[in-house]
């Protein structure tokens, strides 16, 4: 009776003005801010956070899911200087992850092809 639609876990409710990303700058800490991602979960949250931690320009990076029934991530980023804004660091991290996924894609394709060739899969090796 009260259960929300399962699709609410991954579909943005644009009719109600839900946006994918919003930003709130931190008032008490310098060079810090919190991004709120809607309809996301640990899959991307942990991935982006770990990538941010690898960046030496980042002093603090952490994510949390405020409530398990609401599909939202809060990602807090603090950079080491005011020359680099949290949003720039985040863009770099997401871009790096995209490049890494591209590399993985190529590697996986090549590895599968090589394995198939070596093992003559697909009925090709009978001649």
């Amino acid at each position: 009776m009260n259960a929300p639609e399962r699709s609410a876990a991954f579909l943005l409710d644009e009719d109600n003005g839900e946006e994918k990303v919003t930003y709130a700058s931190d008032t008490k800490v310098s060079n810090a801010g919190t991004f709120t991602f809607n309809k996301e979960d640990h899959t991307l949250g942990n991935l982006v956070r770990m990538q941010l931690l690898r960046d030496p320009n980042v002093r603090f990076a952490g994510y949390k899911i405020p409530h398990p029934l609401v599909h939202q991530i809060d990602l807090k980023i603090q950079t080491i200087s005011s020359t680099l804004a949290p949003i720039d660091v985040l863009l770099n991290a997401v871009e790096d992850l995209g490049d890494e996924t591209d590399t993985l894609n190529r590697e996986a394709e090549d590895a599968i092809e090589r394995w198939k060739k070596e093992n003559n899969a697909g009925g090709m090796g009978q001649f």
Partner: protein
Amino acid sequence: MPHQRFPKVEILSIQPHEIQFLLSDTDTSMANALRRIMIAEVPTLAIDLVEFHENTTVLNDEYIAHRLGLIPIKYTPPDSMGGGDCNGAFLPHRECVCYERCPRCCVEFELDVNFDATIRERQVPEHERCLPFTITSADLRSSNDLVQPAHFLSLEEEGASHDQGISIVKIGPGQHLKLKAIARMGISKEHAKWSPVAVATYRFYPIININEEACSTLTQEQKQQLVDVCPDRILEIDAVSGKIVVSEHAWETATFTEDLKITQSAMKKRPEDDDFITVEHSTDRFIFSVEGTGAMDAEEIVMSSLRVLKDRLHYLGNMIEALKESGM
């Protein structure tokens, strides 16, 4: 760009329903993201709507509809043999511009089995005419030749099985089942019937360090004891030198048990001494094992999950850029 990693993939084995590969030079976060996507976000086809015309079987309508939903549906691209990615070939139902359903977003299946008619057709001998038989997934007739239910996981299973396919309901004299089922594309986050995998998991590659100096202080019986105490047989005594070595297939069988540690602390002369042998998790090498349900070939599941991850990151990047442009 600045802090990109360059992961490597090494395939260990590929079968139609299972793939095992080694993923290295990357982080647990990437391995976990891939695992989560394989389980929850790879789009597949599954029966979503069922119209019953006739059901006099022993199971009620929603029970049969539930069973139909869980049948894995295989899409075979025109130029290949096994189950492929249905992402390009179909639109998600929500995005399709059609009114209710069309061949672009749905596949229709029909099932019409009448006990009496089937018994007549099969010319069953007199004394067997009242024995019930099973309606299986083989009785589903698809409207799209490229889309069929995945009746079996592999050819071996097909040969070994007595059934024609996945059993739906058993039917007896006077009973009739007639329905039309519509299959749509979806992801497992909405309902588990859309999950392409039975199991998608990864283990950590073991790093086994043998402290040669410390091991040389052990007697031969102690070394044999250390080798025998491991239930996963990761150690061996080298025949020539008599030393403890890591066995060849250690990475496959390692289960990271505590037995070795406990035995070693009993053997140590002082508690704070170094261990003779340590077994640790590797933080950047993972042994993936992905087992499909028969709807998609295992390597297609892996490639599809990478594509889904790439699209998500791309979309996220665009949204963040838009946020930056709009001045926050």
